[in-house]
């Protein structure tokens, strides 16, 4: 999809020095500011365990779901932490460097809220009633199938791991611009900051559980809002013609002509872009709340309507994301062209850090980089907790040690959260960043395949459990194979990447191009429906549904709900 941008912008439309990477040595001021904020949140992360200390800290619902006690404010921050991560900060503007298609993040985050409004309250209710900690718990209980729970858990862990790894890529992009870890330094010196960051992250997640990212999210969001507000008000004043000037400069090619696909999608390369744009927005929105880390943000709330009540407020995140995306155009307009004069190769992922470095005084650029780095810690912590819960509940308890106590489950989850994080670290250090990105894009395709079992299962138990597993496997296999076949081409037709080069592929049997995940989902649904009819005709055992109709509308205060590990009214007030 994205063509690598190779041309330099024309005559300077602003007084900003050309954003570049590796053109200076280590910027001491930036580094000091970043280190300061990093230390601050590390301390907060450890203190979070003491914050309204739980009486039974060693319980999975306590460590992994914050005791299901979070009120509106914490939820707002926590879900924001899920929604945009350090990688979003880096990747969304980088996508805009390739043209207006990258703006799909905005329609995606618009329609995610109506989707949430529809189904998440039901998931909250049934999970509260039956003590489900993960989405796989729900699928297992609903369809009476440990196998289905296992399949969804495996997909969840596989999709989440590279996402954690990508948080490191976000930190790395900032470190590159600060000037740490270029070609000159040894591998050890280059990777050391990442290693320290993740060790600290692992330690406070281990001790504080979900409370740590909930507390740090406050600092993270404050920094991000500060940086974005300053950026969108201040940076346009540095361009002749303000926003108009930015759009004009960003969309004008080296020959002085307007590049197609920059001011709107337009159609180019013989491809209609509207359908891919709509499907990738829809598919991403449907996939977001299939991710275990996003569901944690919902399950940890104290009542059915906490999230629904918050939806209007959560839209603020979508607005900020739109503005973050436009930083990509600001970088283009300021002359960022993806080709560094220094020792680092050109890479659109450096667009935003390089822009901040060029346009802000060093101390404020440091604040901006700190926002990105801390933005990495919050989602990485939530994701590792989510992946650990999946392993504990749907693999360890279901298949290895069915009689594990709540205490043993919590211990197992804590331990696995360490493994998950170091796995992610090894992933980034062992493979290159491009592989991490490819796997993350693939993760979106995979996780969407759990949609029929979970979302449709919340409304109707019509599908057969084995048909759901077969559909899930079909969707996953199709998605992986098709994604693997996609080549990435440069503007002049050279092959830049042989596999996983695009998220958009031709829909078999049509002339349409669509997001691979959506095509795979359609295939998944067809298989599920057909096999459901077949299995039912063959009278294959259906399994027992342990949920009842009214469980899906249970609410806080109902008399028949199981007790929580401990009540924390003070925390719930937030």
């Amino acid at each position, binding site marked *: 999809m994205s063509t690598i941008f190779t041309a330099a912008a024309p005559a300077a439309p602003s007084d900003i020095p050309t954003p570049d990477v590796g053109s200076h040595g280590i910027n001491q001021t930036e580094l000091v500011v970043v280190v300061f904020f990093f230390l601050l949140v590390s301390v907060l992360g450890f203190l979070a365990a003491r914050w309204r200390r739980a009486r039974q800290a060693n319980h999975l619902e306590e460590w992994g779901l914050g005791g299901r006690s979070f009120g509106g404010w914490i939820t707002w921050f926590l879900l924001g932490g899920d929604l945009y991560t350090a990688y979003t900060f880096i990747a969304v503007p980088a996508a805009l460097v390739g043209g*207006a298609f990258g*703006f799909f993040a*905005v*329609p995606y*985050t*618009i*329609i995610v*809220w*109506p989707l949430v*409004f*529809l*189904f998440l*309250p*039901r998931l909250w209710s049934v999970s509260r009633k039956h003590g489900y900690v993960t989405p796989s718990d729900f699928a297992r209980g609903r369809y009476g199938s440990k196998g289905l729970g296992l399949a969804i858990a495996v997909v969840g862990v596989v999709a989440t791991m590279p996402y954690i790894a990508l948080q490191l890529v976000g930190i790395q992009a900032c470190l590159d611009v600060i000037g740490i870890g270029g070609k000159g330094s040894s591998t050890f010196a280059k990777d050391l900051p990442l290693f320290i960051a993740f060790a600290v992250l692992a330690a406070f997640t281990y001790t504080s559980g979900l409370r740590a990212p909930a507390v740090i999210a406050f600092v993270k969001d404050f920094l991000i809002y500060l940086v974005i507000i300053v950026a969108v008000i201040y940076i*346009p004043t540095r361009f002749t013609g*303000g*926003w108009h*000037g*930015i*759009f004009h400069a960003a969309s004008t090619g080296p020959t002085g002509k307007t590049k197609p696909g920059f*001011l*709107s*999608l*337009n159609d180019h390369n013989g491809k209609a*872009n509207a*359908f891919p*744009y*709509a499907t990738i*927005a*829809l598919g991403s929105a449907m996939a977001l709340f299939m991710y275990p880390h996003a569901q944690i943000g919902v399950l940890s709330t104290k009542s*059915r*309507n906490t999230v*629904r*009540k918050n*939806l*209007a*407020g959560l*839209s*603020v995140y*979508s*607005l900020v994301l*739109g503005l973050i995306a*436009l930083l990509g155009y600001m970088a283009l307009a300021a002359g960022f062209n993806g080709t560094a004069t220094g020792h680092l190769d050109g890479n659109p992922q450096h667009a935003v850090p390089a822009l901040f470095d060029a346009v802000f005084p060093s101390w404020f650029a440091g604040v901006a980089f700190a926002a990105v780095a801390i933005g990495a810690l919050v989602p990485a912590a939530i994701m590792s907790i989510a992946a650990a819960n999946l392993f504990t509940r749907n693999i360890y308890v279901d298949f290895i040690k069915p009689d594990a106590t709540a205490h043993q489950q919590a211990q197992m989850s804590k331990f696995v959260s360490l493994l998950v994080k170091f796995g992610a670290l090894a992933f980034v250090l062992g493979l290159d960043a491009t592989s991490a990105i490819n796997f993350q894009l693939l993760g979106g395709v995979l996780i969407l395949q759990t949609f029929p079992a979970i979302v449709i299962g919340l*409304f*109707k*138990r*019509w599908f057969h459990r084995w048909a759901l597993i077969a559909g899930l496997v079909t969707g996953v296999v199709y998605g992986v194979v098709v994604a693997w076949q996609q080549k990435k081409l440069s503007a002049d037709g050279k092959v830049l990447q042989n596999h996983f080069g695009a998220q958009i592929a031709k829909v078999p049997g049509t002339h349409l191009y669509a997001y691979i995940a959506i095509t795979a989902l359609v295939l998944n649904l067809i298989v599920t429906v057909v096999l459901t009819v077949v299995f039912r005709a063959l009278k294959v055992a*259906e399994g027992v*549904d342990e949920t*009842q*109709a*009214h469980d*899906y*509308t*249970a*609410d806080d*205060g*109902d*008399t*028949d709900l199981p007790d929580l590990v401990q009540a924390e009214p003070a925390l719930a007030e937030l």
Partner: protein
Amino acid sequence: MSEYERSTRGQVLTPARIIAAICVILPFVAVLYVPIYDKDESELGGFPFFFWWQLLWVAVTAGLMGLAYYVVRREELARKAASGAGNVAVPDAVQDTAPDAVADADTQNAEEGDAE
């Protein structure tokens, strides 16, 4: 089946739910039907149409979500109050037909099919 349950049956399409359904559906139409906004002109505050239309819908969707929550919650509370103070737990109302997904917006009706 109690008197109460019978009285709520068939009220799948209440005005509040219709309003909530519209609030939920509108954003999908506005941003997924791309031809509406896939153009440069007219500019607003320096933003091409393509960009400001989508950013505008962020704000509009926020408003719609607020409205949907408000009407649904109000109906929910009104129904709870009407059904008497003793009725805290949710009744086991069973619907034969699966109504519009938005019907879930209400906590008093469970729309499980009787297939299982």
